């Protein structure tokens, strides 16, 4: 077992187990904890898959950002940190069964499909998803240049990068942030509904 495989196995199992733990834990704080573990180890998987930038982003945004946000949410909404909102047993069973069924279906799909052959590096040493440092190509592609696609094989540049989606996403984020702050701002209500 190579080092890569070993690391992969460790993180894969960690990921899966902690994800399962998220499902199974009863208090929201614990769920948050397990989620951190799960996401963090996913990041590790990314590193293993030669996607170091994505992994970094995962760590920064997810683990560092989103989860903090979630924890804030937990703190703001929970009556107590270990508040439990129980699920009925029947539901849990049905959900578990369904989950297994779903997992089986997905596994069947994965197993049943003949995936395309992986490529091993490119001729002119331009980083692809498979090998090399992907940071620079990623950055270029966000600026509208695709060194891996456009410059490969002597094709003329088609500018098939992601400048526009990048911009859209940026604006989208901005809008979302504004929207979120608007939605989350404290409102005065005369009386809580449904009490």
């Amino acid at each position: 077992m190579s080092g890569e495989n070993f690391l992969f196995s460790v993180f894969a199992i960690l990921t899966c187990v902690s994800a399962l733990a998220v499902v199974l834990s009863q208090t929201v704080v614990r769920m948050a904890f397990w989620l951190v573990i799960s996401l963090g180890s996913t990041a590790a998987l990314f590193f293993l898959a030669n996607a170091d930038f994505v992994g970094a982003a995962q760590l920064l945004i997810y683990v560092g950002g989103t989860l903090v946000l979630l924890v804030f949410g937990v703190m703001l909404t929970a009556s107590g940190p270990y508040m439990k909102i129980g699920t009925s047993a029947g539901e849990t069973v049905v959900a578990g069964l369904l989950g297994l069924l779903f997992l089986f279906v997905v596994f069947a799909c994965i197993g049943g499909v003949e995936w395309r052959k992986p490529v091993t590096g490119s001729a002119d040493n331009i980083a692809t998803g498979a090998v090399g440092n992907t940071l620079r190509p990623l950055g270029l592609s966000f600026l509208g240049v695709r060194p891996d696609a456009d410059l490969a094989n002597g094709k003329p540049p088609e500018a098939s990068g992601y400048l526009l989606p990048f911009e859209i996403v940026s604006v989208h984020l901005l809008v979302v942030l504004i929207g979120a702050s608007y939605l989350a701002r404290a409102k005065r209500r005369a009386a809580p509904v449904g009490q």
Partner: protein
Amino acid sequence: MAAGLNAYLLVGAVLFVCGVICMATKRNGIGVLMGVELVLNGANVNFVAFSRYTDLGLDGQIFSLFVIVLAAAEAAVALAIALNFYNNHLTIDVDRANKLKG
């Protein structure tokens, strides 16, 4: 377990299914959100795996980046919604949000 495409996909599948079950079982709104995060992560794992093991090139990674960003955005909005919900109902139990009942 060899680190191949299928292995990654299996991890992704597990994450995905866990996320879905999480969404389906948690009555806590924040829990549902966490389920969503898991689902998205599962998808991300798949993307990265495809990027690594097929000739998709960087597209997969780029997509996963977008997914991460959108997930962050979604989390922000969802949390805002949750807070609003909590403000209105003084609880975070999503079963109380049944106004759309037929």
